[in-house]
Structure formats: structure tokens, C-alpha cells
């Protein structure tokens, strides 16, 4: 029987009422009395030296409050990078300055050169057109492999080359790796590109900043996934402001997908300008600006080699990846191709020897950072594509090959620095085989063939690492932040509860799922609990939401804080019931004395906490507790996906006919929300696999700069999904036994789609090893006729 409330219930998302009825309060809905508007003049040249900027005409234009250029920010900090990666020779990564407004050079199309603050947005735009900028164009650094060569044009003149770091993980002894490959019975090699993506949340980025001359307080409203982190970075590293004088609010946020984790120049600019102009300053990105200023995702070029012995056991794996970082280091960009990617290369398999090599490159493109899955999709795609190719080359069933190499004993120490606490990869594969009706595939293929279509089945597995932690370990790996989270449980006198959380919900449904947990622990109705998030003046210092961490990390903090609340409430109940605290039980919102019929209700105890007349003297009044939680390890969701496609051999058009996901997320709080997260993730993964392609030309012009050329998946591009999460191995180290589900779909689906397309083509007699994503009709046709 499905539950109708508490943990395990598919409670309806309470936040959707306001989102769907237009009652949400997004950053762009916030207008502050007297606000001025900023328009950024952005470079339309990918790489160039700024010879001069003349703002005099612009300054005299109607409505102009002030015109800013890089000069105004000399002496102000740049945007910091939150993770220092150490290269394979022990040297720190090269870390160039990332100015708020361009200083000396422009380094990508969209790089802000100047900013006009004016009474109206149109006046700001008019004035920006009157700014005279003289730029000497330089060759654009676009190709990563060429950029790595000595003598390449430098993106940053003060660095020794364009390589941010040359990093390695796993087996450091090249000779040993070479020997494994030399002795292997079979080696499968694959060159592949993980295509650059633009996250494109429905809501573009917005910032509104105000400054009070009277109190010297700042307030920044911004589209962020983690307001406390933005406040810390902006105050401590960029503007040098006292943290306690700055409030950062991230109200309703219309999707993030990673791209709203980062601290952006525009929000620091607005905060700075609010004081400099003594007026509130607002910026709302247009969609075109979003394309050229939101951090992009992915963009890896890799070679992967898999060595197998005569019995098809995986014996070695080696990867060489070029990872594009773009023109500057975005906040967590350096960690994505390294600790979020290299560590995942073992996948679900017990490959004993693994070596991961990553060169991270500066190029004249928009900075690249975490996007749904961040590093883990890139790892999974390489691994699952090469396994699939190996199966085809060896004539082995791809499921059999995978099963044979699964890790089956836990905990398992991988050769790439992780310890998987628990999992059951055969369990999810069993679920997949039945949920996807693999037995019926042959008949479906015949039916497709009768319609002139080629049908293919793609299978893959994935593992991801969520809730990245603990802080002391990630600190050793270069993180410049902790990765704990925090929650305050404030019980009101009447028994209702406000939970202030460090996590930030921008579509994930925290406002529904988190109360289910607290409601279960106390035995009261979910509606009595409200989640408060997104405002540094209200919530404890938490790290925000990304990396599928919220329930596993912040939810655990909330559980701990709730436990403290219950412990204290039991003391009060014991006093009221004239019993010993040890005998007090809490069930269904009633405190009772074990073995008696004496009880007192939750609401009577909470009221007593705030009206402490009949009260234990040794207990403080009030009922409010905070807990910080730093996990002992990552969590490791894993699963197996199956995709069936049809290919139209005349046009190369691929359609997805069936998609099945079998995930192990550990315990599940709200199955409906989990389904929705998986659906959305798969949708984005299908977008990457079939449609999305952020492309530049060789001069650094963005070719896919609008929705006319950047193909987002639409509802009719995706099938109805079948999602199964009944195979559950609860996380062993957090109190809820949860693992995280936000990114799984985006990680697991691209290889399933591409494997399916290749299966279809090969079944049609075309010996095709690989097609890079997006597997567009023209690429499929070219491969078939190449």
C-alpha cells in the first residue's frame, strides 16, 4: 500500500500551486523603489586587445547615471575559482584573473567590456551603443589540441601556456599501464566528443542590488542555487565587503541545472554599482545574453581505451581527455573534469588498473562549468560507449559483458579514489530487463523493419557520486569550501514548524519532500511544516543545492536538528507527565509514558516551551535547534538504462520509441518527485544525445546563439518513460539512507541513446563504430553514406 503522507508518500508538490498559477516570486518580479537599469556592452569579438574605450558620448546621453569600464574595477577583486587542482607534477593549476569588466583584453564573445547604468533599460542600451571601443583583433584560440601546442596564441598573456592543468588520477606508473594493455587479449579504443551544452534554464539570470547609505547594508536579489556561497565569495574575494552587512536573497528560481551555482560578474557588478550610484541597480539577462554569458557545460574531447583478457574481463582502462574551461575559470570549473569526472571512470566495474589523464584548456569561449551531472556524464558516456563497442567487437551480449564485470562486493575501493559503500548492479539490471521487456525486443524490431525503419536497443549502466564530501577530504583535494550543510528547526508555540535550510530549491521540490521527513519523525501532518530557504538573513550557512546533495546532506542536517528538538521536547513532556525522560515515547504527535495511558500532545508541549510556567527549571525555554552535517562519504546512486530507437534510413532521423530507467537511489522520500527528477534528467540527456549542440566557428563566433539554432528538446522529442526505483540499497552512512536522484537521468541516458542508434545502424548492415553527439539526422545520414 502506498503511503499517503510522510516518508514514501507521493505528496503533491505544494510549491507548484504558486508556480503554475503565476504567483511565484522570481528575481525579475522584484523591483526596488528608484531602481536604475544596467546594460552590459559585450564583446562581439572572441579575442582582442582593447586599445581604447571612449565613454564620453555615452555619459552625456539622456537618463544615464554612470558608465563603468574595467578601469573602475582596478583594485577590485576578480571572480574567484573555488577549487584548486594540483597537476600531475605537483604544481598548482594556472589561475588567471577573471575581472568583473574586461581589463586589457576581451576573451570571448559576450565578455563584458563596459556597463551603463541608466534610468531605463532602453536608455542604457542607447548609451551603450554610443560607447566607442577600439579592439585589435587577435587570432581566436578554439581548438583544444592546437591550443595545447607550444607557440599557440595565448588566451592569457601572463600564463605560460593555455593549459590550466595536466592532471592524472589512478595508476601513475605508465609502464604498468602499458604492460596491461600489451598483455591484453583485446583492446577497444574510441575517440569521442562530449558536446558543449548551454543549460538554458527557463528563467534567465537576474540581479537586483540595493545599498542603504543610512545603515551601510547591501541586499542582493539574485538567481542563485546557493545564496550563502555567493555572499561569501562576493564579500571575501571580490568586493571586500563585511559579510554581516550583506544579505543575499535567491527567491523563486526558475531552474538552475548547475549554471546558477556560480558567482557571476553581473551580480557583483550590481552590488558594487548600487553603492557607486547610490541607487538600486537591476540587470535581467536577455536570452541572447544567457547564451553568451551563462557558464556552458561539458565540452570534452577524449580517447578511451579498454583492455580485456581472453575471458572478456576488463583488465585495464586508460583515458586521455581535453577539457574545455573556456576563457576564464568559473567558480567550480576546475573540479568538473577532475574530481567529478576522473573518480567516476571505474563506473560499475571492477577494472583493476585505471589511468585517467586530463588536460584542461583555456580557449576563447564562454567559461564551462558544472551542468546537470557535471563530469559524471562525461565519464559515463566514455565508459559505456567503449564497453558497448567492445561487446560488438567481441560479439558478446552487452548485458552479459557488463554483468560479468560488475562490482559485486561492497564496500569497494576503486582504483580512482572512491569507496563505494553499497550497491547492487545486478539488482538494477534485473529490474531493467523486466521493466524494459527486453525479451520482446526482437518482435518490436521486426515490426519496425516492416515499416522500413531500423530499430536499435541501447543498454548502459551508470554510477554517480553525490553529496560530495567530507569537507576535510575535499579540502585535501583542493576544494576551497566546505561541503557540509545546515538546518534550523524552529518549532513555533502552536506546534507548527519552520525549517530553515541551507539547500535551495529551484525545481527540486524541497518544500514538499523535506516536510515529509520531519512530519514522519514527529507524527504530525506535513502541512504543519514549512521550509524556508534562499535568504542569508533567515537561514544558517549552508552550501546550497547542486550535485544531487540536498536530501542526503541538508536533509541529514534537518534530521539531526529534528532529533535535538525531539530530545528537548521529551524533557518537557516528561516534566508535564511527571515521568522519567527515558520512559517518554513520541508517536503520532503524542508523547506518552511507556506502558501507561498517560500522554500529552505535541502542541501542548510546544506551547509549554514558549509559555514555560509549568516547566523543568534545568531546561531552556523555546524549541529551536540547528544542526550542521558533514557526510562521511559520497553517496553512490547507480542504475541501468535501456533505450529503443527507430532510425529512418532515408533521412537519418532518430526517434526514441521506448526508454526505461532502473535506478537505485536508496530509500525514497517522495516517489513522484523522484520520478519527475529522473524524467527531467533523461529529457536533458536525450537533448544532449540527439539535439543540443553549442557550436562556435573558427573565429570564435557563437553559431548556436539562440533557440533558432540551439535545439532544446521539446515534449514530442521524448517518449513516455518507464522509471523503476524499486531496487534499493540504502546509503550506509546518512541517517535517511538516501542517495540523491537529481542528475541520474542526465548521466545515464546519453550513452543509452547513442548505443541504441549504433545498434540500429549495425543491425541494418552498416558497420559504424561511433557517431558524435548530437546524433542529428544529418550526422546519421553522413555516417550511413560515408
Amino acid at each position, binding site marked *: 500500500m502506498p503511503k499517503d503522507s510522510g516518508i514514501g508518500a507521493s505528496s503533491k508538490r505544494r510549491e507548484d500551486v504558486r508556480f503554475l498559477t503565476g504567483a511565484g516570486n522570481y528575481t525579475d518580479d522584484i523591483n526596488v523603489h528608484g531602481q536604475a537599469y544596467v546594460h552590459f556592452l559585450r564583446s562581439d569579438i572572441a579575442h582582442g586587445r582593447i586599445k581604447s574605450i571612449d565613454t564620453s558620448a555615452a555619459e552625456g546621453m539622456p537618463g544615464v547615471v554612470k558608465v563603468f569600464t574595467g578601469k573602475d574595477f582596478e583594485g577590485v577583486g576578480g571572480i574567484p575559482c573555488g577549487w584548486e587542482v594540483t597537476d600531475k607534477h605537483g604544481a598548482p593549476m594556472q589561475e588567471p584573473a577573471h575581472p568583473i569588466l574586461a581589463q586589457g583584453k576581451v576573451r570571448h564573445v559576450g565578455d563584458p567590456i563596459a556597463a551603463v547604468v541608466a534610468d531605463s533599460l532602453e536608455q542604457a542600451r542607447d548609451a551603450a551603443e554610443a560607447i566607442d571601443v577600439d579592439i585589435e583583433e587577435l587570432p581566436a584560440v578554439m581548438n583544444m589540441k592546437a591550443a595545447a601546442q607550444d607557440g599557440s596564441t595565448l588566451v592569457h598573456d601572463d600564463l605560460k601556456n593555455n593549459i590550466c592543468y595536466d592532471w592524472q588520477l589512478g595508476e601513475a606508473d605508465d609502464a604498468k599501464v602499458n604492460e596491461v594493455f600489451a598483455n591484453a587479449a583485446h583492446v577497444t579504443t574510441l575517440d569521442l566528443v562530449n558536446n558543449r551544452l548551454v543549460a538554458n534554464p527557463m528563467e534567465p539570470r537576474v540581479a537586483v542590488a540595493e545599498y542603504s547609505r543610512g545603515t551601510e547594508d547591501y541586499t542582493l536579489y539574485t538567481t542563485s542555487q546557493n545564496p550563502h556561497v555567493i555572499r561569501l565569495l562576493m564579500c571575501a574575494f571580490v568586493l571586500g565587503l563585511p559579510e554581516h552587512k550583506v544579505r543575499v536573497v535567491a527567491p523563486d528560481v526558475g531552474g538552475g541545472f548547475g549554471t546558477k551555482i556560480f558567482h557571476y560578474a553581473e551580480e557583483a557588478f550590481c552590488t558594487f554599482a548600487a553603492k557607486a550610484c547610490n541607487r538600486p541597480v537591476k540587470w535581467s539577462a536577455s536570452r541572447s545574453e544567457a547564451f553568451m554569458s551563462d557558464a556552458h557545460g561539458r565540452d570534452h574531447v577524449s580517447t578511451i581505451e579498454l583492455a580485456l583478457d581472453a575471458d572478456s574481463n576488463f583488465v585495464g582502462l586508460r583515458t586521455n581527455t581535453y577539457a574545455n574551461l573556456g576563457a576564464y575559470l568559473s567558480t567550480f570549473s576546475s573540479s568538473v573534469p577532475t574530481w567529478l569526472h576522473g573518480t567516476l571512470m571505474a563506473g560499475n566495474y571492477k577494472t583493476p588498473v585505471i589511468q585517467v589523464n586530463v588536460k584542461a584548456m583555456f580557449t576563447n569561449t564562454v567559461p564551462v562549468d558544472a551542468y546537470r551531472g557535471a563530469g559524471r556524464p562525461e565519464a559515463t558516456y566514455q565508459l559505456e560507449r567503449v564497453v558497448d563497442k567492445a561487446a560488438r567487437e567481441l560479439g558478446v551480449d552487452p548485458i552479459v559483458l557488463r554483468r560479468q564485470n560488475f562490482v559485486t562486493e561492497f564496500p569497494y575501493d576503486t582504483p580512482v579514489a572512491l569507496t563505494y559503500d553499497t550497491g547492487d548492479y545486478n539488482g538494477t539490471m534485473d529490474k531493467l530487463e523486466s521493466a524494459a521487456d527486453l525479451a520482446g525486443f526482437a518482435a518490436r524490431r521486426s515490426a519496425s523493419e516492416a515499416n522500413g525503419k531500423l530499430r536499435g536497443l541501447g543498454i548502459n549502466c551508470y554510477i554517480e557520486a553525490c553529496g560530495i564530501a567530507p569537507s576535510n577530504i575535499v579540502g585535501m583535494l583542493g576544494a576551497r569550501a566546505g561541503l557540509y550543510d545546515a538546518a534550523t528547526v524552529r518549532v513555533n508555540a502552536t506546534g507548527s514548524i519552520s525549517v530553515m535550510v541551507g539547500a535551495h530549491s529551484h525545481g527540486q521540490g524541497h518544500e514538499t519532500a523535506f516536510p515529509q521527513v520531519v512530519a514522519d519523525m514527529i507524527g504530525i501532518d506535513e502541512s504543519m511544516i514549512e521550509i524556508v530557504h534562499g535568504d542569508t538573513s533567515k537561514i544558517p550557512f549552508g552550501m546550497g543545492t547542486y550535485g544531487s546533495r540536498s536530501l542526503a546532506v541538508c536533509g541529514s542536517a534537518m534530521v539531526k536538528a529534528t532529533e535535538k528538538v525531539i530530545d528537548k521536547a521529551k524533557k518537557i513532556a516528561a516534566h508535564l507527565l511527571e515521568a522519567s525522560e527515558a520512559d517518554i515515547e513520541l508517536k503520532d504527535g503524542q508523547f506518552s509514558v511507556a506502558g501507561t495511558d498517560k500522554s500529552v500532545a505535541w502542541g501542548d508541549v510546544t506551547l509549554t516551551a514558549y509559555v514555560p510556567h509549568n516547566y523543568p527549571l534545568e531546561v531552556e525555554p523555546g524549541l529551536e535547534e540547528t544542526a550542521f552535517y558533514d557526510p562521511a562519504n559520497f553517496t553512490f546512486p547507480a542504475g541501468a538504462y535501456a533505450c529503443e530507437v527507430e532510425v529512418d534510413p532515408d533521412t537519418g532521423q532518430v526517434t526514441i520509441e521506448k526508454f526505461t530507467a532502473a535506478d537505485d537511489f536508496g530509500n525514497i522520500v517522495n516517489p513522484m518527485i523522484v520520478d519527475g527528477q529522473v524524467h527531467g534528467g533523461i529529457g536533458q540527456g536525450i537533448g544532449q544525445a*540527439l539535439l543540443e549542440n553549442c557550436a562556435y566557428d573558427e573565429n570564435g563566433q557563437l553559431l548556436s546563439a539562440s533557440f533558432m539554432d540551439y535545439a532544446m528538446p521539446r515534449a514530442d522529442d521524448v517518449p513516455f518513460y518507464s522509471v523503476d526505483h524499486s531496487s534499493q540499497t540504502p546509503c550506509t552512512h546518512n541517517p535517511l539512507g538516501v542517495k540523491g536522484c537529481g542528475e541520474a537521468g542526465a548521466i545515464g541516458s546519453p550513452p543509452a541513446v547513442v548505443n541504441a542508434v549504433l545498434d540500429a545502424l549495425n543491425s541494418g548492415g552498416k558497420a559504424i563504430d561511433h557517431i558524435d553527439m548530437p546524433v*542529428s*539526422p544529418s550526422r546519421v545520414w553522413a555516417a550511413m553514406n560515408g
Partner: protein
Amino acid sequence: MYNFEFEKPSTIADAVAALGVEDAQALGGGQTLIPTLKQRLAAPSSLVSLSGIAELQGVCIEDDGSVAIGGATTHATVAHEAASSYPALAALAGQIGDPAVRNRGTIGGSIANNDPAACYPAGALGSGATIVTDKRQIGADDFFQGMFTTALEEGEIITSVRFPVPLAASYQKFLQPASRFALVGVYLARFSDGVRVAVTGASEDGVFRWSEAEQALTKEFRPDALMDLQINPMNMIGDLHGSKAYRAHLVGVMTKRAVEATL
């Protein structure tokens, strides 16, 4: 957007007068023009909306049996009102963009704009339509003169488009995955005296007639008649979404499908 004056006349004569002002521009559904203005890529002095002119609205059947569509008629209206009189054209209109675009965008705007990937130019050229303006009547063969170029003069308004109704017709549109305009679209119309095939999306010269296919199909109306025909990829568009060779190939596939659909 730059500032502009806005006028909404209720007669063609008033619209023509309003368009006499220097740098004045007609506004149909705004589905092309408004985004252009928002990007500050155009700066008309005045926008003259055609949406308030009753004479420019609607679909009617002329005495000679042709279907006449008012210049400011929306795609949604055509999809609905031409469904029985000219089903293939109605189907074309019903495949343009999304409901919002179809409820604003107009036939006059689409044809005046002559986007190389737009659908209506193929429908008009494939049908051998006549474009009627406030000044004259122009045959489709003379009207479309290459990407974004037409026979229209400054300030000239498309008042209606007159379509002779073929025995059978079909529009086969292969979607550009991002914009969902035509990557290649083929409009085929079979008349008693011959077959017309118009192709959009494919050529650097905009919409064109594929005369070899027309001749072959006029001689013998069956899919196999196209077997040995190939479009020269040289003048095809090659971009992010498909090479020249791919577009040339799709022209053949879509034409064949159009024949099959009309059999």
C-alpha cells in the same frame, strides 16, 4: 527596440498612405519583425499594423475556384478555414511554428519576408499562386527573387494571395531541429496540365522549382520517376544542421514522399 510611431489603419488606402512616410514599415503578425526590432536590427520610423483592416482578413473561394487568402490572415485561420477548400495548403499552415506563432503570424508577412526556410513561399510557388498587392498582381514565379528578396516595392502591401487549387498536393517538411522551420520542405502540386515542385529550406537562392522533377513527374506520376534525379548540392545551404549534400539528398526524399502522399 528603438522608438517608433505606431499606426493601426482600418482601410488599405490609409495603410498605403501611412506607409508613404520615410522608413515606415508594415507590421503583420510581428513574428519576424518584432524579434528583429528587439535585437535592434531594424529601426523603422513607424510601424503600420495591418491587423485592423477587414479587407485583408479571411479565406474565400473565387468564381474560378481558386482560393484567395487575405494578406493579414493568420496561419491558424488558414489551417482552419482552408481545410476543405485546399487541404494541403491548410496542412502547411498548420505546421508553421507553434500555436502562438500561428495565431499571430500572417501569410502576407511570411511571403513578404521570403525567409529561405519558410513554408508559405513553397506553397505559393508550388501552387503557382498569384500575389495580389495594393498596386498589381504578381505571379509567384516572378515574385520570389532569392533569400529575403521579393518583387515588392517599398511600401507595397500584399493584400491577398490567390491559389489555384490542384488535383492533389502535399507539403513534406523536414524539420530543422532547433527552429523547426524547414530544413528542407517540398511542396508538390499536381494539376491537370502538369506537376509543380517547389523546394524551400535547401537553397542559397531561396525557394525554387525543381524543374527536372516536375518534368519527370508530369510525364509519369509515380515515386520511381524520381529515381535517377539528383539535385546539385553546389547551391544548397550547408550549415550546423546539415551539409549541402544532405540537403540535396533530402530534397529527393521529401519529393518522393510528397508523390506518395498524393497517390
